[in-house]
């Protein structure tokens, strides 16, 4: 069958694979486990950060908050102190909109990620736009957060084009069930958006190694720009990351949660943001459906007291481990013992 032809799969096959569709996600997970009153905890990034700090979870440091246009000038003076740069982001921004990354200063002018220097007035404009709600849902007035610029671990430099690779973990009732790393490419213009051509790669929860992923819905084992293998990459601080993700359940109280984490070179995994409606692309990146894992969590939860997050992370790492899938690509051609059954 030619590759461009749409390929149809029978619902029964998807069901066997445990693939979760939109309708099932909305009614069985989101409607059932995510009480609406807890949404502000994740939709408002300032609140998320505060809750995370209270809970002792690692987040990028908060340098300041701009709430009114009048504060912009005062803040600007203060920003000069941050030699290593900073990030300005709207508290209610969606999908990474309105995030301005400043790497440092060139004289009096802030230097953007990518090296371009900008005028101070542009910085003011950006904050002003954030405050007027340009990036928030429904255009409601917003506040601008100024926080530490994450210095990304160099582990992934070879497999990410310009942008920032982030790690999305889906946490179900406090148990991490699936994770993927999103690697920006030239096509995706440095954005970690699978839709635009970023590579999504699944992660073995047991070891924190990448499984090999999907790009434009096709299997992919090398980064398209650098041609480096994306299979078997070890994510630093994986155990810590799993605990961090599991711990987000307590602070958000959401039973079906997406946790976005970046790896800081010095501080290790940091929570970037939480998502009350994590999408289903994670199944594509992992080549596996969510349903079986969620059923396993439900079975585990029957008649059990709530476990501490470290306990939950350990259980998930053990149960959902997939060591078979993390071998580098070349091993696949050998007739290995764990060859996939036909």
């Amino acid at each position, binding site marked *: 069958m030619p590759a461009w032809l*749409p*390929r*149809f*799969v*029978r*619902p029964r*096959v*998807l069901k*066997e*694979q445990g*693939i979760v*569709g*939109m*309708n*099932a996600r909305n*009614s*069985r997970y989101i409607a059932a486990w995510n009480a609406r009153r807890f949404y502000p905890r994740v939709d408002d990034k300032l609140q998320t950060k505060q809750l995370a700090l209270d809970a002792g979870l690692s987040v990028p440091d908060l340098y300041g908050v701009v709430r009114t246009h009048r504060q912009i000038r005062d803040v600007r003076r203060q920003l000069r102190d941050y030699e290593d740069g900073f990030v300005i982001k709207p508290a209610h921004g969606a*999908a990474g*909109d309105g995030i301005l990354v400043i790497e440092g200063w060139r004289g009096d002018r802030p230097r953007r990620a990518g090296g371009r220097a900008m005028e101070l007035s542009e910085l003011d*404009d950006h904050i002003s*736009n954030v405050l*007027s*709600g*340009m990036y928030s849902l429904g*255009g409601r007035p917003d506040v601008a957060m100024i926080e530490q610029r994450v210095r990304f671990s160099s582990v992934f430099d070879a497999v990410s084009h310009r942008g920032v690779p982030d790690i999305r973990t889906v946490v179900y009732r406090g148990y991490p069930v699936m994770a993927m790393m999103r690697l920006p490419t030239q096509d995706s213009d440095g954005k970690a*958006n699978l*839709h*635009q051509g970023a590579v999504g790669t699944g992660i073995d929860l047991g070891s924190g190694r990448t499984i090999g992923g*999907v790009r434009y*819905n*096709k*299997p992919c084992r090398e980064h398209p720009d650098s041609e480096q293998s994306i299979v078997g990459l070890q994510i630093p601080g994986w155990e810590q990351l799993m605990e961090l993700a599991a711990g987000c359940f307590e602070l958000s109280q959401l039973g079906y949660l997406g946790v976005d984490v970046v790896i800081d070179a010095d501080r290790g995994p940091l929570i970037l943001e939480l998502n009350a409606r994590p999408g289903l692309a994670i*199944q*594509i990146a*992992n*080549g*596996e459906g969510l349903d079986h894992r969620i059923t396993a969590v439900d079975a585990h939860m029957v008649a059990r007291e709530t476990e501490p997050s470290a306990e939950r992370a350990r259980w998930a790492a053990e149960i959902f481990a*997939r060591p078979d*899938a993390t071998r580098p690509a070349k091993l696949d051609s050998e007739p290995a013992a764990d060859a*996939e*059954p036909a």
Partner: protein
Amino acid sequence: MKRFHLPILIVLLSAVGLGVFAYKVSALGMPLQPDATAETWQVEARVRYQPTGGAGTVELRIPHRLPNFSILDEGFVSRGYGLNTVTQAEDRLAQWTTRQPRGEQVLYYRATLYRDGNDRSESEYPGPVAVPDWTEPFRSAAEALIDDVRGRSSDIQSFASVLVNDLANAAPSSNAAVFIESDDNRARRTETLIELLATARIPARQVTALQLVDGRRDIEPQTWLEVHNTRRWVPIDPETGEIEYPSDVAVWSHGDAPLLEVTNGENAEVRFAVSRGVQDALATIQRFGDTLDTRILDFSTLNLPLGTQNTYRVLLMVPLGAMIIVFLRNVVGVQTFGTFMPVLIALSFRETQLLAGIILFTLIVSLGLAVRFYLEHLRLLLVPRLAAVVSVVIMLMLGISVLSHQLGLERALALSLFPMVILAMTIERMSVVWEEHGPADAITQGIGSLVVAAAAYGLMANRQLEHLLFVFPELLLVLLAVTLLIGRYTGYRLTELFRFGRIQDAMRRPD
């Protein structure tokens, strides 16, 4: 219990909706087709007489409740007469009175009849009747005939039928021939039959009926025989023995009392004229509903003022469009801008027609997008930017209208009915998607919205569906039930079968 809550609700809603619908269709005969017409009959009874001096009183028997027709409308034309109608047994009596009639008098009674099928409702059994006093040789002939007929029939109805046939085909020397007179006619025959049936103690009665023939001016009232079979009165043709009235025969009055009685008058006669009319079925049904004891039609949409009716004709289609959206989004998985924006677009397509609508919509949205991208450079705040887009959209609409009017394209004038705020929001959302997810996504969603709008329009502009929902608004309950049902659908969307189909090669096979 909680598990069954929704299924029970769904069943209940559909049962009520379909039940009322079925009742209105079958019992009230409300039309399923938008341009259904109903046959009505105008029957005119014309009374003529010459007064002989003194106060004149005219008594005409008129129908009260016909077994197979309903009276939609009636009227009396009688200048200078006082009119009074009294119910008498199963009929009514129209009594005209005047003090000093002069010259030939003509009075009219007109009724519009609507056929509503044979009434088989039961009536009380009057009990066995007394045997008439026959004189010989009739007594022996009657008894012999009765015995003979009884041997060849099974029940009252077949008895009467066989008896009628025996009289109709009487051999010259048979017992039946005794009862056939030389100046035999339907009325005579009916009287004879009633007497013979009484010999068998069967209650029977005479009925005056009219055969409805379009355009006839002098219709002779026919006499029919009705036999009570202990449950109801069964009509029998006294000449052929056929059971039940043909569809073109309307019962006028019951019993053997004369149709017309005139005091202080002579040469009195009543003549019947019939003409057929075709009326809008809905109007007929409505008037028919007035004659029934049902309250359902009082609460129908048909009783609203005309302007309101037209509004509701459109509004009642919105739930249908919304259901299409639900289906296309949750079962098929089409992506659209704004949840119900396509329904509103579809509503405006009703005015512009589909092709013109799609062209105009595409035109405005693309021009609007261009302007929106320009506004992006001006770094405006959100609300002022939206307001600017609305103004630009309206100016674009005006420009297109003026231009197309100059070009003689009148259809494009309906453009003014486009919901401009919705258009502005669409442009805004589309530009956001364009920037965040790229032009491909924005255009896909734009086309998706248009396809959904066109599909919704296809259904919402359907006259048949519009008629059904307007005349039977209870069907909305069924729509509601279907919507609730889809609301619980947790299966895959059609597009997901393709989305996950493409990555089947990458799927880990279950161990």
